[in-house]
């Protein structure tokens, strides 16, 4: 059952941490749960990272006081070369409410641990910067993801202190506050730049302006309605988040999606990637003044969202994915439209890229701008496009195959330079790979069935689901409840990992280049804030 690599890891764990590990349970062959007797996971993560090169994917909490008398923290780990996820459950006592922080050694969980503090009222002991993040400083002391906090709670007007940014001193050093309302048509967030002349010394971020209680709301809606909530986690990743959610339910309830449903999902996931990548390539060009490239890019995107609508009835691919498969099959005319659009896009995309490649001034502005060094990217746990441009070789499609990805071969582009140019290059390569995947998927001989009927979802089942959205690794973790509802739904958008990359990449760059550096990551505020 277990892959070679992982079983060696378990054997070692069992021997070394016999006292600590209470039980090991394989919910599915690629999803192993390890239960600890106490909240101190540090020796285990240290050992797994050191000996096995394991990566901490995400950290989140669950209020299990009603059933098990404690809170639990979940630490999701993966190891290169294995499709399995190892999920360590560590109890956090309801009387002490404390757990040891990993952030000093693993900055990638900095925000995630603070989110647990803010939403569950558990204390990350030893956290280097334990200030509020997911609820703003002026909020009262409420813990919205605890089970005894009703979602409908109407909080009185906020009277608390406002956030105090760290001051920056020095001759000629200025602090420039930007946001939450930005100059362009983009999402809200606050950036506080400390600049010395033009170069940026230090950037402080304040996110969670669009926090709208999404994870809590998942505990209220019946599952078939929650699919639409998943589609609204991050609008540009509607299909990826929708698929991640449906996959989680399917895994929990052991529902097998027919092959055609999986292939259709794969096609739409790749179309979502293409739409967003081509738009980003155009936006990056705009931010250095090459607007004509953006005119072509946004025209190309428009042809693809028009195709989306023909295939799903929605330009954002909404209302298509469902638990058990997809809601509609495609007729011959739709398949024809798909083929024609993909082929004409493939031709036009090459034209667009050659326009950009020929523009020396564009290249000049993008190369060595906003560099994220590979060692930093690894330490900060950067995933997705931003990670792959800085040597982080991760792609859920290859590492933990889902939908129909195991049927198609594709290359995962990885660069080491970590500048804006290479983040654009990763997108260019990925669009080309996506076209390759689409050609194979479109030619896949398919049977009729695209969806299976969904039985009543059994209660108290846990499942982890991962999707490589166009931005990077999306994780959904659920625990089902009675009445076709969920007890918990954890959403991790890749943006949550990646904001620190922006902070790192802008240092030393001129403030005028911030827009293009930010755009080259193009992170989701709503996906972060939920």
């Amino acid at each position, binding site marked *: 059952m277990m892959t070679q690599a992982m079983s060696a890891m378990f054997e070692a764990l069992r021997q070394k941490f016999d006292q600590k590990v209470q039980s090991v349970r394989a919910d599915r062959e690629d999803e192993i749960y390890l239960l600890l007797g106490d909240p101190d996971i540090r020796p285990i993560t240290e050992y797994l990272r050191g000996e096995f090169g394991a990566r901490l994917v995400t950290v989140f909490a669950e209020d299990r006081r009603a059933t098990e008398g404690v809170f639990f923290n979940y630490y999701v780990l993966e190891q290169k070369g294995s499709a399995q996820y190892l999920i360590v459950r560590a109890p956090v006592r309801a009387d002490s409410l404390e757990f040891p922080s990993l952030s000093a050694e693993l900055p990638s969980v900095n925000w995630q641990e603070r989110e647990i503090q803010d939403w569950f009222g558990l204390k990350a002991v030893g956290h280097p910067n334990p200030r509020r993040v997911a609820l703003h400083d002026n909020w009262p002391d409420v813990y919205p993801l605890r089970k005894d906090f009703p979602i409908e709670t109407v909080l009185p007007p906020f009277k608390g202190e406002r956030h105090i940014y760290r001051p920056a001193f020095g001759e000629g050093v200025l602090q420039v506050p930007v946001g939450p309302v930005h100059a362009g048509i983009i999402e809200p967030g606050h950036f506080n730049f400390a600049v010395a002349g033009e170069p940026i010394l230090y950037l402080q971020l304040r996110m969670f302006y669009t926090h709208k*209680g999404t994870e809590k709301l998942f505990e209220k809606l019946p599952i078939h309605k929650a699919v639409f909530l998943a589609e609204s986690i991050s*609008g540009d990743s509607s299909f990826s988040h929708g698929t991640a959610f449906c996959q989680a339910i399917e895994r929990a309830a052991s529902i097998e999606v027919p092959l055609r449903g999986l292939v259709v999902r794969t096609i739409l996931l790749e179309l979502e990637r293409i739409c967003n990548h081509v738009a980003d390539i155009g936006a990056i060009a705009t931010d250095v003044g090459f607007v004509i490239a953006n005119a072509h890019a946004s025209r190309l995107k428009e042809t693809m969202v028009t195709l989306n609508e023909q295939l799903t009835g929605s330009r954002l691919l909404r209302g298509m994915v469902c638990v058990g498969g997809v809601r509609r099959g495609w007729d011959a005319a739709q398949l024809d439209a798909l083929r024609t659009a993909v082929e004409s896009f493939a031709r036009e995309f090459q034209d667009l890229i050659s326009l950009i490649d020929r523009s020396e001034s564009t290249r000049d502005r993008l190369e060595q701008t906003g560099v994220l060094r590979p060692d930093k990217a690894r330490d900060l746990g950067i995933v997705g496009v931003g990670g792959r441009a800085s040597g982080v070789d991760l792609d859920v499609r290859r590492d933990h195959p889902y939908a129909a990805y195991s049927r198609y071969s594709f290359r995962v582009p990885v660069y080491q330079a970590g500048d804006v140019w290479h983040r654009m290059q990763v997108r260019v390569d990925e669009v080309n790979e996506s076209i390759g995947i689409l050609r194979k998927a479109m030619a896949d001989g398919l049977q009729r069935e695209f969806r299976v009927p969904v039985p009543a979802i059994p209660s108290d089942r846990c499942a982890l689901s991962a999707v490589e959205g166009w931005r990077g690794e999306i994780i959904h973790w659920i625990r089902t409840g009675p009445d076709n509802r969920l007890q918990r739904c954890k959403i991790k958008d890749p943006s949550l990992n990646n904001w620190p990359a922006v902070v790192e990449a802008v240092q030393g760059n001129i403030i005028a280049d911030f827009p293009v550096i930010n755009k080259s990551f193009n992170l989701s505020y709503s996906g972060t804030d939920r």
Partner: protein
Amino acid sequence: MFKILQKTVSTGIVTVNYPAEPAKISERFRGRPSFDFDKWKDARPAAEVCPTGAISLSDTGDSRKVIVDYGLCVFCGLCAEASSDQAVRITQEFELATSDRRNLVLTAEYTLNADHTHGGLRRVDRQLVNAETDVESLGQKARETIQKILGRSLAIREVDAGSCNGCELEIVALNNPVHDIERFGIQFVASPRHADMLLVTGPVTRNMELALLKTYRAMAEPKVVVAVGACGISGGIFGENYASLGSVDKVLPVDVYIPGCPPRPQALLHGILLAVGRLAERLHNDRAG
């Protein structure tokens, strides 16, 4: 340079002529669900599946009141799939923007059979959905207003007050060469101080309430506010909760509502042109007063 020109010439003009010509949209597009109230034998299946409660019902004794609120609708099409009596049909209509929130609500009252299906239609209150359907002249009028009164330009400030970013994608698409909103003299500006119109997406979160208010207050009079999408109109799927205030009109006076999840670019344009009319009225009144 030559290659750039060559590509531009070979591409030609791609801009559509909406609203002077009808929008060319896919026959698969899910627009407004239409309800044949006479034929509708049971509203329960549709209400049961609706993800946002856009279709709701309340039974008292032997009568049932059904409320359809397009301000909550996310255009998923589940209601049509769930209603076996063919009374609910998905249409291609997208020009749903209105200046009166009540126009987005339909109410029907039925007598009930013993099995809780509909006996007879007692009363139906069809509000003025699509009251402003003459889009072609709307476009013409807006163009004239912008030309004459606003000195050839209407400036819009967009604020995301908590949206999932779906509406923003479609608002950005208004600026692409296909929809090209600048052909009306309409442009998006960086500062509220330059803006005549505030285009707001929602739901308004607790954390964005103050920023939204400050942006509005920074605008010079006369100004109009347009609420975009199901979330902006009603809170949408997020509704009201500890972190979400819900609709934009809880915080600001709203002049025009544009339904959709998200509204397609043509629907946004339709709503914006409608709001230009409101702005013209206000300008006129200001001058007269």
